[in-house]
């Protein structure tokens, strides 16, 4: 190859690089190692970690322990999917495009919205981009966010919209109910671009007044953005049914492992007339036919919204997304179907209620802390001692049970409360262990 180019060494191909630009010393990294050595290095490093299977983990708060069916794992490990790039040449990438189109369709059916994109990075960035979209659509600058929303979501929204000259106000929640306080949702017709609420909220509580919140937002010509946990939609009304304009959420429960919180899957769906959809961020796949013929095909659509064409006037800068995670979620939802999702939702909700009942039977514990309905997560507190949420959390983990996420980390006034998350991944012996450990930590 060098001969074909008429040069003697690779270094000659860098002849145009000024001498003072080269690194003075070689880069300081270890290696090279053989494959076997690397496996051992990693094994050695991870040997002290006490990470346990999802069945011993009762932590939620934005990523939840679930069972991943082997068929989902197989599908997302197909290297034809995972070693491909963004499908810029549709005729060579029909498989990925159709899989993403089906993902979008399944998300639309799940949320009862009209259009979904092919994924965002995660829930927090999906929520932040939804807030930016609301600012573009309404021409207003204020976003009202329920304080009962996840910490990362609230803060990502703040970071993103402040960069765009927007501002955020937090609406409080009732200290006893754990529900967003309707009277503190200060929505102004002149300023509010959107109201953002989560269902169920970060405290695990099911927001009963979502239809009223939608109406309140719409009365003031603001959008209603709902952050939804997807498995709950087997039991709870879809946000589209109570007039949400944009639905975002974390797709990780749909067949993705925890992976220490990444890669995740940002769900983004909107109601849709074209003017509205044109303001959506991210890749969108549409269905079409061959130019000559009737055969169906799929292509990336509305690319004129995107950065590679519109540059500084794009609706978002997003380029790389979480496509492979979207394929996994499509496979997961296809396996479950409507009946399966309903059954899954029921098991999760029932198991959570079972666990809450068991914890409440323990001496000194209150469970759930909030006087409202919950789906899969509920707050507990130890009331007859000065045990903080963080104490509970640390003492449980020392016993190999990951549970009781301290709410004080996110809400300074809640130093005693901690969140328990229960899913279909937990069986009776797992809950027994949790309850046993809670009994012991005093």
């Amino acid at each position: 190859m060098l001969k074909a180019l008429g040069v003697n060494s690779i270094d000659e191909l860098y002849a145009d690089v000024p001498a003072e630009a080269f690194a003075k010393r070689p880069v300081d990294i270890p290696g090279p190692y053989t494959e076997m050595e690397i496996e051992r290095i990693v094994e050695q490093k991870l040997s002290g970690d006490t990470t346990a299977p999802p069945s011993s983990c009762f932590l939620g708060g934005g990523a939840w322990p679930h069972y991943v069916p082997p068929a989902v794992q197989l599908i997302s490990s197909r290297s034809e999917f995972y070693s491909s790039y963004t499908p810029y040449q549709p005729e060579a990438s029909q498989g990925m495009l159709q899989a993403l189109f089906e993902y979008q369709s399944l998300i639309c059916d799940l949320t009862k919205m009209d259009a979904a994109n092919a994924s965002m990075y995660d829930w927090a960035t999906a929520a932040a981009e939804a807030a930016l979209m609301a600012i573009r659509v309404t021409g207003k600058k204020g976003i009202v966010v329920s304080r009962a929303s996840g910490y990362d979501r609230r803060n990502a929204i703040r970071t993103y919209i402040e960069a765009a000259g927007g501002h955020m106000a937090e609406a409080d929640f009732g200290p006893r109910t754990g529900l967003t306080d309707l009277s503190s949702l200060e929505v102004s017709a002149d300023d509010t671009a959107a109201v953002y609420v989560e269902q169920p909220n970060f405290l695990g509580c099911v927001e009963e007044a979502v239809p009223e919140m939608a109406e309140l937002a719409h009365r003031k010509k603001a959008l209603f953005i709902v952050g939804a946990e997807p498995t709950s939609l087997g039991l709870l009304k879809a946000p589209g049914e109570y007039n949400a304009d944009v639905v975002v959420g974390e797709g990780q429960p749909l067949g993705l492992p925890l992976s220490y919180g990444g890669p995740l899957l940002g769900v983004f769906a909107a109601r849709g007339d074209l003017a509205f959809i044109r303001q959506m961020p991210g890749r969108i796949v549409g269905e079409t036919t061959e130019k000559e013929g009737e055969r169906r095909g799929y292509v990336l659509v509305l690319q004129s919204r995107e950065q590679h064409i519109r540059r500084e006037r794009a609706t978002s800068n997003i380029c790389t997304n979480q496509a492979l995670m979207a394929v996994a979620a499509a496979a997961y939802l296809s396996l479950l179907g409507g009946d399966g999702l309903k059954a899954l939702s029921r098991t999760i909700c029932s198991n959570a209620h079972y666990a809450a009942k068991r914890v409440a039977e323990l001496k000194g514990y209150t469970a759930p802390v909030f006087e409202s309905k919950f789906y899969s997560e509920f707050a507990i507190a130890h009331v007859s001692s000065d045990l903080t949420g963080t104490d509970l959390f640390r003492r449980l983990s020392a016993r190999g049970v990951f549970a009781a996420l301290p709410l004080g980390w996110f809400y300074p006034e809640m130093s005693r409360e901690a969140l328990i998350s229960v899913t279909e991944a937990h069986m009776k012996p797992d809950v027994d262990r949790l309850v046993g450990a809670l009994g012991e930590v005093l």
Partner: protein
Amino acid sequence: MELGRKGRIGFVPPPPIDPTVEIDLPKELLRDEVELPGLSELQVVRHFVRLSQMNFSVDTGFYPLGSCTMKYNPKLNDRIASHPKVINAHPHQPHETVQGLLGILYDLSTMLASITGTEAVTTLPAAGAHAEFLGALMIRKYHAVNGDSNRNEMIVPDSAHGTNPASAQMAGFKVVKVSTDSRGLVDLEELKKLLGERTAGMMMTVPNTLGLFEKDVLTISKLVHEAGGLMYYDGANLNAIIGRVRPGDLGFDVVHLNIHKTFSTPHGGGGPGAGPLCVKAFLRDYLPTPLLAYDGKLYHWEQELPHSVGRVKSFWGNVGVLVRAYAYLLTLGPEGLKEISGLSVLSSNYLMKKLDPKYYSLPYAEGVPRKHEFVVSSKPLAKKGVKALNVAKAIIDEGQHAPTVYFPLIVDEALMIEPTETEPVEEIDRFANVVNEIGRKAIDDPEDVLKRPLFNSSGLLDDFKASHPMSLKLRWAPQGKQ
């Protein structure tokens, strides 16, 4: 999906622990119907496996998509990423219980700092564009903290990736475009005129999207710094210089890397990626939170930094992607790094040389070696009505992936080609022959090229029809509903 039937199921969730426990939810919020198709496991597996077979990938063929660095993804890295202690780790687990995993992330950060010539690294950003937005925000915050809030202009070359201006705009900057001169490099004289007290910084890709090393980059850094601005390095093209040239030494203050390009992690058909942000020491306090730190005993997440741009995502970054990069770097070592950049540049120049200039002209800088990628124009074929898009479709008909087309925007009928270091010379020769043959055919028998593709999973598709709102989701009705 359209095969869905009521009552069919592919995965049966476990029953509740105690079936006598009543579900207690607000009646008016209960959902009546969940309309998702019912399929068996076999149907779902067959469907998705068939779809995967209708998808071109690095594991099935040559993928010379310019600026995307579609190198081979070593399988060891997947095995490492599927370690139970990686995939089962909960992001809220106490940091004491994941010291090994955090140690890997920390070591990776240290290696990335060394590679880029920077001092502080966050592995938080999910992708390159995410990092660009955060880096641009950091630059804005830096000026604000220094009482320099009037600096609201970000300079971006006209050859830049689209994410650069889009990210700068999202971070609240006015984007100021600087032209490419006849050498294919940033126009220095124009740049001098653009610099001033409004300048917040400049975003650059080195080598640039024409595959040319910006040889004035040291001067440019000096000029931008003298004007009071900061330098941002877009890492999309790092593969050309890794192990040889360090962005930090070139004067860049903020550097992002594309783990899914340079560091061989699979691109997943669009994602996930990871976009670590590497900065000079004086910018550490501006990094997004949380930041992984080591106190001499334990790795932990630093939740607050004095001037941080804030929180920007859920949790701690795409860990499953990052551990693959760690394994990749250990495989290479320092000499291996130098080798990948060298071989990527060799492959690219070799392929460029093989393309027939009768059909594909080389814009800018004749005789100057390209780096890991190069851009040719199919303009010589235009007289026969054959455009870059037609060439691309004819290439995929020959079982290879097309280059990036119509980018950079400064080249008409652009074909942007990046072979990467992992392709054997036989593949590169085969590709060159295919592309030259298409050129010959375009002149002799243009009709044959214009009707492509013929042999793919679909023929030429109608983009326009797909943009109708009715085409954005599948309309299906469950069968067998009784």
